[in-house]
């Protein structure tokens, strides 16, 4: 089976096709909080939720989640008088408990109600805590010795790190919307500092570590309405435990302060490490040696996390299922740009959770297949597909050249001269509902980009005569010069319908100094030109000298319909998201499009079955 195109394919139905056995008294639970002491004396706050089987001495597999966003919340009045946890936590815990799982939620060191401090996410100490927690769980009287872990974003990365310990108790992990390469997925995509995300994520982390729920008011209003802070671990002997823990967080350091001058992948962090150390790709060998089955899921439209699912698929030999859909960060909102009016996300939370439990059950019972399988959703066509190879069968590249009169054509330029000038508009922006703001909980909604494109340099094709499926990484190759010694080229791939509505498909960008295609073996397999982003590979930008720049856009799967046109829009800045390069001046870019210096985009298409 290499590929199947089938209306009935839906990963959430296929993985969770059989009903799962529920236990009796499924809504009766035992919930308690306690501190677990780590090897260096640091106490971690833990909330345990167990199925209540009327005192019978049962043993359960455990679902572990480690978070830096509060393991549980102290509810505001009047909710605290009625319920133990937020409704969302209730849904998750009841779902797992009612299917016979214990759940354990942990505040990682330096956060929530836990003690200790941290100078970076996923420090060696924090990662090592994961192993101790696995051992602590399996030593509990209610544990059957088997642990699973899952989570979205930070929690997903924490789950992936659990696999680095080769701890036999870990049976499966589900990794949702989480990082693989901290430099490119988060801190500096394309070598450009992800300024807004890094600043806001740091600020919200700092507020949470000081037990201030303020940050939820803007981003997660439901949480703010219902919660006044982290849930303490109550102790009659010492009622000030929470404050003592929070006082220790005052020593925390935050990524924005540490990385705001980050330029290169190998820039040293204060602890002597570099960003790669906190990237899970760096720990590939350990993850593989664990042989832990992985279900990895994300969206084409959430930061670079759609690419991450592909990277895991291409690079890890663990048994693996990948799922890439069309929702926001965490699948709470729909984000398919072809259908901006959609209000309800598919799958539902209930269906998602059932899928994860099915996956865990199959791993615990050794029924999980050892093959790799990838499900992906093609936007515009509105179909799930599955494949065991990537790129999928019949994948090929179709080259489209930038041409005169802002045309995009599929024949190379014949002219000896030809270029377009673009004065970088530093007010150009994708707004606050783009793939990077998605990481902060914002909806992904690029809208009709016709107005935004008026600030950019665009190249547009003639209407297509048939539907074209684009699946994979588009790759832009431009010959350009600039009037300044630094700069960035952003490329947006778009669909234009017969009414002129411009719909975002995907994008990518690169800072000029990182343009060298490295001769070294790449850090991991990726299907785009390999830029190392290392100091030694940085190339000088000489004003008005032509540079050849090749870079990949984020992977996608979308159909441009018959009668629609394809557009590539170029920019020099994305104001509300990335740091400005150069920091001052008004650069003019020249994009060359002649036979000596052509510029083009390679579009990954899936050839029709009956085509030659």
């Amino acid at each position, binding site marked *: 089976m290499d590929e199947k195109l089938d209306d009935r394919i839906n990963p959430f139905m296929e993985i969770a096709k059989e009903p799962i056995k529920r236990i009796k008294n499924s809504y009766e639970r035992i919930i308690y909080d306690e501190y677990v002491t780590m090897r260096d004396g640091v106490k971690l706050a833990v909330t345990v939720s167990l199925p209540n089987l009327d005192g019978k001495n049962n043993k359960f597999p455990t679902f572990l989640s480690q978070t830096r966003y509060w393991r549980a919340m102290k509810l505001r009045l009047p909710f605290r*008088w*009625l319920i133990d946890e937020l409704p969302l936590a209730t849904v998750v815990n009841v779902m797992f408990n009612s299917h016979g799982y214990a759940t354990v939620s942990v505040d990682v060191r330096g956060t929530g109600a836990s003690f200790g401090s941290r100078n970076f996410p996923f420090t060696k100490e924090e990662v090592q805590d994961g192993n101790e927690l696995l051992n602590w769980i399996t030593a509990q009287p209610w544990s059957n010795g088997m642990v699973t872990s899952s989570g979205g974003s930070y929690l997903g990365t924490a789950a992936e790190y659990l696999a680095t310990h080769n701890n036999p108790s870990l049976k499966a992990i589900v990794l949702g919307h989480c990082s693989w390469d901290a430099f490119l997925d988060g801190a500096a995509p394309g070598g450009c500092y992800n300024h807004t995300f890094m600043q806001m994520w740091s600020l919200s982390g700092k507020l949470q570590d000081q037990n201030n729920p303020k940050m939820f008011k803007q981003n997660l209003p439901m949480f703010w*309405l219902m919660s006044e802070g982290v849930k303490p671990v109550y102790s009659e002997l010492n009622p000030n435990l929470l404050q003592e823990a929070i006082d220790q967080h005052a020593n925390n350091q935050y990524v924005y302060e540490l990385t705001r001058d980050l330029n290169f992948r190998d820039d040293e962090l204060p602890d002597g490490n570099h960003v790669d150390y906190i990237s899970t790709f760096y720990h590939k060998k350990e993850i593989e040696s664990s042989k832990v089955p992985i279900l990895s899921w994300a969206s084409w439209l959430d930061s670079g996390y759609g690419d991450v699912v592909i990277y895991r698929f291409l690079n890890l030999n663990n048994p693996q299922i990948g799922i890439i859909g069309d929702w926001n960060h965490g699948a709470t909102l729909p984000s398919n740009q072809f259908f901006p009016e959609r209000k309800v996300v598919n799958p539902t939370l209930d269906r998602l959770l059932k899928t994860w439990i099915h996956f865990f059950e199959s791993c615990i019972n050794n029924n999980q297949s050892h093959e790799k399988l990838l499900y992906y959703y093609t936007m515009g066509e509105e179909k799930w597909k599955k494949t065991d190879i990537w790129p999928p069968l019949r994948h090929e590249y179709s080259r489209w050249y930038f041409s005169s009169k802002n045309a995009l054509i599929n024949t190379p330029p014949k002219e000896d001269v030809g270029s377009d000038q673009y004065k970088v508009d530093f007010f150009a922006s994708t707004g606050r509902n783009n793939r990077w703001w998605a990481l902060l909980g914002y909806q992904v909604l690029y809208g009709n980009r016709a107005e935004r494109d008026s600030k950019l340099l665009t190249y547009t094709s003639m209407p297509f005569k048939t539907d074209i499926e684009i699946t994979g990484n588009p790759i832009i190759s431009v010959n350009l010069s600039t009037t300044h010694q630094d700069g960035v080229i952003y490329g947006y791939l778009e669909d234009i319908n017969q009414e002129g509505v411009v719909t975002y498909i995907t994008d990518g960008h690169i800072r000029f100094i990182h343009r060298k295609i490295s001769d070294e073996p790449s850090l991991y397999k990726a299907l785009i030109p390999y830029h190392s982003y290392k100091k030694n590979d940085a190339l000088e930008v000489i004003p008005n000298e032509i540079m050849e720049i090749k870079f990949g856009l984020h992977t996608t799967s979308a159909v441009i319909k018959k009668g629609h046109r394809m557009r590539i829009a170029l920019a020099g800045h994305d104001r509300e998201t990335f740091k400005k390069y150069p920091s001052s001046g008004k650069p003019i870019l020249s994009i060359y499009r002649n036979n000596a210096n052509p510029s083009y985009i390679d579009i990954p298409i899936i050839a029709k079955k009956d085509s030659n």
Partner: protein
Amino acid sequence: MEAIFSILRAKLKENIQIEFDDRNNTVYLWVKSKQFTDAIIATPNEVKVMLIIFGGLNENTSLTIEVNNSSKIIKLISDNKDEYTFLKGIMENLWDQTIDLLEQVDVGNFSEFLKIKFED
């Protein structure tokens, strides 16, 4: 979530009894929930925050809040008739208003949420 909101609405009405003493400008809140076993049912400030967020109480309203942890009864005493009348209006609809707000936010309607005048 809809089902949970519906359960919460019923639980609030069933477990938190509200009574009015018009003569003494006082509202009584009686926390009857058996599930809630904490020794301290609330601080006066937490009660005030609840009234500001879910009832629209003005932060500067003078209101005496007395919490009796053993009887689980909270007394809200207004200084004068006008303020009592306003408070009574809040309390008569407080639980419906609370859940209505959650429901609105859950479906992305923030018009009432944005009117909340409270900062942590």
